[in-house]
């Protein structure tokens, strides 16, 4: 589980991919996502997968991504099995590959984009600050929530209860463990709300930001190439049908 979490956590690196504007990376990852969802052609999907490699290598995300994919193997296998049963071998394997591709591109986006930068980027696109604040704060608390859940499970186990004894006991125990988890989370939410109020959250509608985003040539280039390729692929697909 922690491997999956890490796949979507920003890494402190100074690479050309990290330095790209979040908006250009957003456009690029959305384009890759759209193609990977719509297209079923194995050659285009292979080309798309290969096109991610330079980003992964330059963005120093190889080990993060491989760890994430490794921890996702059970889910990928389950999904693959279901797809194969439903669609047959060919489409089943392609559908699973599409899932891996879509996950990888979003992982790459989050590994190379700081959540605060994402918030500023969303604000600059006209999304209200309150909304982006909630989004960014929630995302920041996911790892903390994960570690707290682990501590609660540990505390429960340390009371001498063999969770592995039966499935029924496991389900009942997890329901019991929800009590401290909900309490701890609610307390944190209240503390956060108090801290925000103490810092005059919402006092002024118009906000300034410490970090200013600026689009550079490479950002425009990435956006233009991504959009042209996506439109090209989709038009070819439309015309072929």
């Amino acid at each position, binding site marked *: 589980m922690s491997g999956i979490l890490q796949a979507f956590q920003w890494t402190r690196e100074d690479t050309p991919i990290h330095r790209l504007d979040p908006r250009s990376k957003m456009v690029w990852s959305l384009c890759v996502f759209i193609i990977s969802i719509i297209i079923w052609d194995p050659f285009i999907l292979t080309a798309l997968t290969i096109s991610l490699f330079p980003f992964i290598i330059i963005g120093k995300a190889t080990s993060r991504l491989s*760890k994430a994919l490794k921890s996702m193997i059970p889910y990928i296998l389950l999904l693959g099995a279901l797809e194969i049963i439903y669609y047959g071998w060919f489409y089943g394997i392609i559908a699973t590959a599409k899932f891996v591709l879509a996950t990888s591109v979003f992982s790459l986006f989050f590994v190379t984009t700081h959540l605060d930068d994402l918030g500023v980027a969303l604000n600059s696109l006209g999304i209200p600050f309150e909304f982006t604040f909630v989004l960014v704060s929630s995302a920041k608390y996911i790892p903390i929530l994960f570690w707290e859940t682990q501590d*609660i499970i540990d*505390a429960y186990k340390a*009371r001498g209860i063999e969770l592995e004894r039966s499935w029924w006991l496991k389900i009942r125990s997890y329901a019991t463990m929800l009590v401290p988890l909900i309490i701890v989370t609610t307390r944190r939410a209240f503390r956060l709300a108090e801290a925000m109020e103490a810092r005059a959250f919402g006092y002024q509608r118009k906000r300034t930001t410490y970090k200013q985003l600026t689009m550079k040539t490479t950002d425009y280039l990435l956006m233009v190439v991504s959009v042209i390729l996506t439109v090209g692929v989709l038009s070819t697909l439309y015309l072929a049908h």
Partner: protein
Amino acid sequence: MPYISVSDLHFSYPNYTHALQGVDLDIDLGEFIAIMGENGAGKTTLVKHFNGLLKPQTGNVIVDGADTRKVTVAQLSKNVGYVFQNPLYQLFSETVGKELELGLRSMNFSDQEKKDRIDEVLIALGIERFRDRHPLMLSEGERKSVAIASVLVMDPKVLIVDEPTLALDLLEKKRLSNVLTRLHGEGRSIILVTHDVDFAFDHSERIVTMSRGKILADGPKEDVVNDNTLFDKAGLVEPQLFQLLKHFELSGVHTSDFSVKSVFQDIVKHTKKGEG
């Protein structure tokens, strides 16, 4: 043979943090030990190996003659109790009484035996009046006592208490101090994981300091605290009593016993000698 024996223990978390880098440690029954060090030194990671919550990646942890890799947390927790830093993580029931009963469910006791054990622990910790109260309705210190009671009811030989003095006021700290002293007096091993140098120095007999996943010093508390360099390296500041003594030593007061009473007597003796 020590009750807990750790040899060449290494452990890394999935985020590549090498939390323990070759730890060797022996703990006997009846010892009162404080494990100290800066944040991220590996203290909690180390003690989580004692009741099997973490399993050694390399090296060995032997508890009561059993390799912790081969026994479950449930089996180990009957002998090694663990009180977590945040009591909220380990309070699951709607009353204090039921909270204490939770740990006894897995043990084959009759209802009467369970009741007797719960009564005994509630009285021993002075929290019997909270039996029917919701644990969350109690103060931080009272919750910590309930967390200790919930572990103690299983009658462990070793009690690990992680950051016990965190968020406690002076009165709650005093109450906790009495509880730990009494438990130690009953022959249990107490392992404190703490940043509170004064509390550790007042209670423990042996101090283990850690830094970056390694043990820097391990020995009688006076020896460890006296070694300034090692204490500094572990990111710790000497106990207040020691700091005070250093000032008096400059004026010629010497003491060999580091209890508050003894230091006070030495100072009085020195002052009288000066007057005479």
